[in-house]
């Protein structure tokens, strides 16, 4: 089992966290999110992202507004809600702790 396969469950779980972080910096639409992720280990597809975003919106972590696009149908631009920001802050903190634990353990 390659390291890539081993971490697939973890990557899947972290995707929500990364999406929060991407949306936190600016208003984005799905193609932007995919593009930013495409060069990372977390590259994903619309089929995964849309259900995830819709669930996060239902949990009131994010919201969207419609914007006309110069080419094609109007687009949904996503942004974080206050709850989403809070969640991102908590997650970052927790992630820092995990990171610290990973580095610290086993060192004497």
């Amino acid at each position, binding site marked *: 089992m390659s390291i890539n396969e081993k971490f697939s469950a973890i990557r899947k779980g972290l995707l929500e966290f990364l999406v929060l972080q991407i949306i936190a910096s600016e208003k984005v639409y*799905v*193609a932007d999110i995919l593009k930013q992720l495409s060069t990372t280990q977390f590259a*994903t*597809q*619309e*089929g*995964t992202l*849309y*259900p*995830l*975003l*819709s*669930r996060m*919106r*239902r949990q009131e972590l994010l919201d969207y507004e419609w914007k006309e*696009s110069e*080419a*094609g*149908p109007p*687009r*949904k631009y996503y942004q974080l809600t206050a709850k989403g920001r809070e969640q991102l802050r908590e997650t970052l903190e927790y992630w820092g702790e995990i990171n610290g634990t990973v580095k610290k353990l086993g060192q004497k």
Partner: protein
Amino acid sequence: MNKVITINLGGNAYQLEEGGYDALRVYLETASAQLQGNPDRGEILSDIERAIAEKFRTRLSSHKNVVETKEVTAVLTEMGPIEVEPGETACANASGAGATGSGSGQETTGVERTAGCGAAPRRLYRIQEGAMIAGVCNGIAAYMNIDPTLVRLAFVLLTIFWGTGLIVYVVMAIVVPEARSPEEKAAASGFPATAQEFIRRAKEGYYEAMRNFPGRNARREWHRRFKREMRAHANQWRYNWHSYWVRHAPCHPGMGFALPFLSLLQGVATVLFLCALISLLATGTVFGLVLSASVPVWVAALLLLIAYGILVAPLKLARRSCYWGLGQSRWAWPFAFFLDAIIWLAVVFALLFLAIHFFPELRDAIHGFPSVIQQAADDIRTWWHGK
């Protein structure tokens, strides 16, 4: 030359080659099925349609206004399969199934919904926590989502009245595994609330309807419906149990040989019973035991019947589990069944023949049988009138 189909995606018309259209239709239908039960299903589907439309647009120009099949498949590959969000779809599915199953979706409470959803298939385990003996009743109660006390009561009643409760208990204590790991413990509790639903409906529906009856006919009609429903529940239950056994019964070739042997024992028991019954009716004695004059013959016959039932119940149970076990392998089933039936019949007839041949009293008793029946009927009649 390819046929072109025009479709509407996100409010704009696109022209697709026929093969591409089919591919897109299959993709969207699959997505729709995948999202079954997701509260945002419609929205996600239109998001996806819009995303596809946008991708089509980048592949079209003023000189090219038809999306080719290979372009459609490329776009769909880019989109990727619809990932089901964990816990959502399975959950909604479970409650949806429950709703269609019971025909009363809005009555399902939130608690039941969360209890019934997203969980691994339930299995029967013994649960030691809070157990009285081996945790069998506890396990059954968890499996069916009812109070363990009710199950214990049922076992006690079964033991007192039919003698089977104890045997079933011992067999289950041996056969049913104990829930040890957390996963097993989770799997042990709750089977989509059939029993609970049954009891809840019985209580709620019955008393609710009792309160407001417009008339006698309505009451009768309602009573009939209630009974029918209960019967349907019971049938469903029996079916569940039966299919559970058929799936889980151990299949062993030895069962093929055990089955006729068990049948033989049961045949002997049946013949003994018949002999005892005949001798009771004819001479008033059962295996040398003289019936006291205060006990009517028909009461003694009833007692004899109950004794026979108790004696034969474990044999019947063992035979049934043999049937279920053998039912799993297609070839063994008819063979064993046939052999079993033949042996059973042969034993009963042979023993009856021998008994009649060697005991002249029996022969006389059979000749005197009609008058004995007459006598018994008279007994019952006088008892009835005397009351």
